[in-house]
């Protein structure tokens, strides 16, 4: 009985994957042969930033800890949960706080989504920082990857600004005073202190409605766009600079020892 069912299922699968509709979406068969495993990576827009093959050493979890990938994944989670929150949030100082209260108490799944957005944001600052530290210790910023490191520094700064601008939006005492303290630091800029502060807050007196709308706009469109553009460059350059760096090669001393060993073995042969 089992074998007949299996045969039927195989036949149905084959019929489906060979149909014109299926083939119009996926131009190749299921990726279980080397050819199809290559075609799927080259023919799929979501996968094509990956190479077809990857070095076994560079792929190890204990080498990358998935930190860059997780940072990007958190960015996606934040985009999805953020769009949901935008349905209910109006960046107006008389209603913003009430909107947050409404999200947490009256909107279906509102509290969960807001929690996810908050914790993912803090987590992203952590994963981006750890990713940067990991890349430093592996020396993966060295040529030919030096420019991608610079792009990474821009992304790190963008992440901090995204978190900082989002911090104000609930318009509660935490956000209001954290941004007041944070933006005061800008006013200590030599020569241009007052200007820097009023560009950031949109007002010469302090955090207010002009700050709220400025931070909101930067948070939901300006900075995510900057981040997305630099991320595209960052991922593209990983490939163009030769893929993941992989674990550091042997040190100069180890190389010399290996050479010396080789020379002695050659000498003993003569």
């Amino acid at each position, binding site marked *: 009985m089992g074998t007949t069912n299996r045969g039927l299922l195989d036949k149905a699968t084959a019929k489906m994957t060979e149909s014109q509709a299926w083939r119009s979406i996926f131009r190749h068969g299921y*990726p279980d042969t080397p050819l199809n*495993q290559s075609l*799927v*990576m080259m023919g799929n827009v979501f996968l094509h930033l990956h*190479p*077809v*093959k*990857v070095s*076994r050493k560079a*792929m190890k*979890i204990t080498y990358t800890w*998935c930190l860059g990938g997780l940072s990007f994944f958190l960015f996606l*989670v934040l985009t999805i949960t953020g769009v949901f929150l935008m349905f209910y949030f109006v960046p107006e*100082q008389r209603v913003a*706080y009430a909107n*947050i*209260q409404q999200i*947490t108490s009256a909107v279906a799944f509102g509290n*969960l989504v*807001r*929690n996810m*957005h908050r*914790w993912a944001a*803090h987590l992203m*600052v952590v994963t981006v920082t750890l990713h940067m530290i990991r890349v430093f210790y*592996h*020396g*993966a910023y*060295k*040529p*030919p990857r*030096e420019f991608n*490191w*610079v792009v990474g*520094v821009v992304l*790190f700064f963008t992440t*901090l600004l995204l*978190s*900082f601008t989002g*911090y104000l939006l609930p*318009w*509660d*005492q*935490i956000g*209001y*005073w*954290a941004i007041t*303290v944070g933006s*005061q*630091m*800008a006013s*200590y800029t030599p020569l241009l202190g007052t200007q820097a502060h009023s560009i950031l807050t949109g007002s010469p007196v*302090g*955090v207010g409605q002009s700050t709220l709308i400025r931070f909101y706009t930067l948070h939901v469109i300006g900075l995510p766009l900057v981040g997305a553009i630099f991320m595209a460059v960052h991922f593209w350059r990983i490939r163009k600079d030769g893929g993941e760096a992989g674990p*550091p*090669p*042997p*040190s*100069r001393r*180890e190389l010399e020892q290996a050479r010396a060993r080789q020379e002695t073995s050659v000498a003993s042969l003569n």
Partner: protein
Amino acid sequence: MATTEPRTAATQKRYRTLAVVKQEAITRVEKQLEDSVFVWPHLLVREFMAALLMTVVLTVVSLVVDAPLRGHSNPNLTPNPAKAPWYFLGLQEQLHYFAPTIAGVLLPGFTLVGLAILPYVDRNPSRAFEDRKISITVFTAIALYFAVTVLAGSFFRGSGWQWIWPWQHIYFDL
């Protein structure tokens, strides 16, 4: 007359780009084969599992711990201490030691610029730990300095930015 024209577009030699193979490209023909595996499924399955695990952890944490929300903002009621977001608390802690221009602007500014130009300053080509003692020491010292100041500003500072032990009281919001 048309016949006197030396070269028309049709007679000109034209080229099609089939491929450009750079010296160090992964497509280089003589490049030694390295121990590699197909991304589908080996890498993709790892990425998927990492994303899945992250989703589960994030969902569970979000179900259990609520994001903080204090009272409505009040410009006339300054909390004591008023703290910046946690990742800027290192800078706020430094305001305690240095002049505001140094602690709040120049130090973070130079750190960021220093990070950006790091690959052009550190010209040592070796990636091995053993060959990079100076750069690793300097980076570790700076990273530790920021980590310690962030922790101090987060958990060891109370009203008036006075030193306070975490078991006495914690003034910290996420």
